[in-house]
């Protein structure tokens, strides 16, 4: 069996294709009517509880330590949790536990082994974050066919579900924790990404927190004291906030009067949609700004957009559609929601068929082309000014895979190694992400002006590969890339063993 996995900030899903090529979600093996797994993990005594089971455990033990939102830590090579046996857990290894759970669910549902999978990543994920996902999959013993960007996966599903052809589509993907804007063109042959952009810490989590703040404020006003927060009340507050967000997403609701129970505190709240919209307005404006920047990045005008597809649970908030319809007037009547919760996972399953050569069998368009999400460059030190300078090798929004070759020279006769910093950035004024140190050497015959040809490739799944050659001999030089930034060597092995030894709890 091949699957598509949507590894989300708040929820994760796994999907595969039925014999006729229809993508279906696979249920939780413990709760058979639930098709999503909260991306929450509790680790204790070499056993990990993942998903809804964690909620059940919190209700019994409000102080239970729970790991959430680990996706936001991808690409940061630092532990996020230390278990009772003093084992350090990194975002990659925690994600591996969620993947392991999804794998178990899929295998228990289909009765066959998970051979390989396509895993989705936010379109704006940088190289380090993508490699973190690959690390997680390796730790969970899931062979990865490829990574696919969440908006692209959703667009693939939309394209297949609606036989939609020949159009320029903007995918506005506002999930639980990240936001992506992607401009795509679709035709009968396939899907072509024209541009992409996004925000890392933006999504349902922030919106739920806005509602939680309103509830806490109302509680304080009604009772005169602050609501005590522990694991259980925090879970209940999050649940209620999410419920309220969903109810307020119904177009007819101007306000919501609701009796709620948090911990042992029961009261009645009144939440106004306008107030909620006010609280999230700034965040929505940011997403609109990024969407417009993305359209601009594709070299298009708003009037060139044929349709705008809303994906992700948070995109169901009516204010978002209203706001977008004001800026993308051409697509006003073509702004629509498409399977906001499921499209990404199901699109990933479709992409798994594309990558494994089954596309024709299922009548799935064969072509797929992504673009680079960032400028990729090498940071060097200007010998005159002694200031760092960035030499751009691959530009943003170039078709994938993209390759660039540049020759650098040693500056002294005794220089046996060359150290280059690889960076990714949207523009030089914004954040420059160091994706790792490329150490070349020892050079076979050190001398001044020794030429080293560096090849940088942004691969089909958006990760960065590098190689260094001696241009005179064509011989590849010894090199190490990214060991300063990514989990590697013994640590990777140790984390892999840790994940392997950790049993995923299953109540059945």
């Amino acid at each position, binding site marked *: 069996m091949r699957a598509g996995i949507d590894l989300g900030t708040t929820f994760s899903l796994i999907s595969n294709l039925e014999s006729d090529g229809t993508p279906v979600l696979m249920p939780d093996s413990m709760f058979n009517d639930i098709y999503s797994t909260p991306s929450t993990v509790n680790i204790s005594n070499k056993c990990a509880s993942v998903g809804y089971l964690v909620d*059940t455990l919190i209700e*019994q033990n409000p102080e239970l330590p729970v790991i959430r939102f680990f996706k936001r830590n991808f690409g940061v090579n630092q532990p996020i949790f230390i278990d009772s046996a003093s084992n350090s857990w990194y975002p990659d290894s925690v994600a591996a536990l969620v993947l392991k759970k999804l794998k178990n669910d899929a295998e228990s549902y289909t009765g066959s082994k998970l051979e390989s999978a396509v895993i989705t990543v936010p379109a704006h994920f940088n190289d380090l974050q993508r490699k973190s996902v690959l690390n997680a999959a390796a730790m969970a013993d899931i062979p990865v066919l490829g990574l696919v960007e969440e908006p692209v996966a959703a667009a693939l599903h939309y394209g297949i579900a609606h036989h939609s052809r020949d159009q320029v589509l903007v995918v506005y993907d506002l999930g639980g924790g990240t936001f992506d804007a992607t401009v795509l063109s679709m035709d009968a042959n396939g899907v072509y990404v024209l541009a992409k952009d996004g925000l890392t810490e933006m999504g349902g989590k922030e919106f739920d927190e806005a509602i939680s703040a309103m509830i806490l404020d109302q*509680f304080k*006003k009604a009772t005169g004291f602050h609501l005590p927060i522990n694991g259980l009340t925090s879970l209940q507050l999050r649940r209620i906030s999410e419920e309220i967000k969903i109810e307020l997403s119904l177009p007819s609701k101007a306000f919501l009067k609701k009796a709620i*129970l948090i911990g042992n505190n*029961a*009261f*009645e709240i009144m939440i*106004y949609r306008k107030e909620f919209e006010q609280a999230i307005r700034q965040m929505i404006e940011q997403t609109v700004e990024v969407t417009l920047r993305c359209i601009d990045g594709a070299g298009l005008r708003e009037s060139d957009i044929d349709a705008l597809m809303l994906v992700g649970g948070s995109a169901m908030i009516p204010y978002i559609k209203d706001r977008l319809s004001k800026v993308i007037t051409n697509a006003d009547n073509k702004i629509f929601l498409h399977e906001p919760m499921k499209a990404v996972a199901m699109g990933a399953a479709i992409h798994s068929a594309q990558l494994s050569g089954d596309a024709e069998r299922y009548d799935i368009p064969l072509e797929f082309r992504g673009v680079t999400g960032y400028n990729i460059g090498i940071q060097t030190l200007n010998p005159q000014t002694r200031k760092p300078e960035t030499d751009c090798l691959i530009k943003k929004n170039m078709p994938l895979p993209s390759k660039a070759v540049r020759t650098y020279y040693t500056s002294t006769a005794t220089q046996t190694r060359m150290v280059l910093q690889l960076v990714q950035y949207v523009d030089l004024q914004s954040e420059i992400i160091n994706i790792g140190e490329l150490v070349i050497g020892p050079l076979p015959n050190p001398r001044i002006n020794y030429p080293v040809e560096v090849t940088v490739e942004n691969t089909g799944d958006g990760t960065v590969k590098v190689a260094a050659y001696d241009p005179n001999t064509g011989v590849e030089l010894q090199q190490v890339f990214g060991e300063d930034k990514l989990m590697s060597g013994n640590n990777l092995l140790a984390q892999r063993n840790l994940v392997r030894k950790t049993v995923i709890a299953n109540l059945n």
Partner: protein
Amino acid sequence: MMSEQINDQKVKSLFADLTNIVAESGMANQSKQFADAMRELPYKNDLSKIKFRISYTPGVDRSFFEQATAWITGAALVPGETAEKSAHAGDALAVFEIAPFENITATQLGDAGPVVFFGIIGASDLADPDFADKLLAYSSVHPYIILLSETGIAADTLKPGDHIGGVLHVENYTLATLPSTSFIGRLDHPEFLHKMHNLVHYNALNSIESLYNVFSMLLEQENRLLTGRKATIGQQGPKPGGGSAGSVGETILKLRNELTEQMAMLEKGLADGFENYLRPQTGQLSQVTDRLLADLPELAQSEKTKTISLHIPEQYVNFFLDGVFGEINKFCEDQLITIRDAFKLTQQDLERRIEKEGLPQVPFNFKPLTDKQLSVIMNSSIRIDKIYEGALPKQGPLEYFNALKSYQAMLYLFASSLGLSYFEKARYITIPAAIVLIGICIYYIHKSVVQEYREAGEKEYLKAKENLTNEAKRMGGEIARQWNKVVTDQIKMQLTQNSNTLDFTLKEFGSKKQHEAEDEKRRLEKISQSFEVQEKKIAAGLKAKESFHRNFIRVRADLRQSVAIQLKKADR
């Protein structure tokens, strides 16, 4: 009046039903606010005091406010100066709460709230795009709304029936359209007051709904908790493998077999090692003996009357014994190390297996052999039992005489040739020739005697070597016998002692586990029984709740309809 009493009864009866259901489900004290609300509700259905709310636009025209409040309360009030105004309404007291417009936020559970809401609306509120939503929110908690606006607002701004449990009647006035009878004046009419009383019941009924909702949540939470507990309780039981007494017994058997096997292998390995060590010619002891014997000096001689006795020099014997001692001792010491390491590895292996099975650590104690036992064996065995003693015949005329016997004929021949007549004429030839031949003969006799003597010496030397080789073999064999016995005894003793320790510890653990498992089983049975009780309680609560809700919906619909019909005539 009749209908009012009926309604009052209906509400009280519904509340009593809810109280009973809550009490039976055991949820009454799950939430303090819920418990408080359940206790306080009957008193909130008090008809002696009817609450009204007046909200106004901050900055509203003062004269307009005064006229509006005069129509409502009977007294012209100044905005911001009065928060509460009371007036008599028949036998009851009408209490007007006066506050600027603000968003309605959280309310206490069971808080029925004022029955009539008066909105004194200024121009600035009408300009506020969110004002309609604000009013809509008020209409969700007040069944009767009277709007008084400076400039007039659209008639359809609020419609009765926008919310279930919400507004039933809306009146919309400007100063110009205000009815001649003031609101406080209306309250003097028993019929109108009776409508207000029904509104109190209706509001009380609505407040029961929020309590019902919380009760539903409590039941749902309890149900979820119970499901979770039921699901996870199985996981708290004995761990697989290390748990049941049966599995402990199996583990003991497996570990014992493994221990016996490992000890037998060790014993065999050591014995085989010694056998190889002693193997003639190729064995290490044999090679070392050969090396030592290569240094064997000439045998010492001492003259006897007729013979020369031969023996191995004492210094060499000591050297040889030291060499053999050192060699065998080293070999045995290596075996001591092997035994110690094997014991250690076996112990570690067993401990690892035991840990893996989830069993408690067993206090194994493998005692290795000591140097002392070895040195006793060595000291008693390294000795020469039968030392070589040889002899050579003494060299003298007799040896030559004996040797001469072999040459006797030749000598006679040569000697007689001296007197042969045939050669008499050539005596000058025959005599020297005979002398030369006799000389040669004598030379060979001498040579033969010396060679025989040397050969005899060499034979004796070899005998001495053989003697020492045999002695070395004997010592090796003797040590091997004793050593193997000591080693075997030691291994067997360790095997027995540690097997017993293993048996004892794990059986004790097994029986403890069995008791624990029985206790656990009893505990789980008790928990399971308590779960069943809880489950039944929850199921009963859920069933009663559903029935209550159906009743509630019906009563509310009736009340809503009757109150709405009554209120239609309210402004008349």
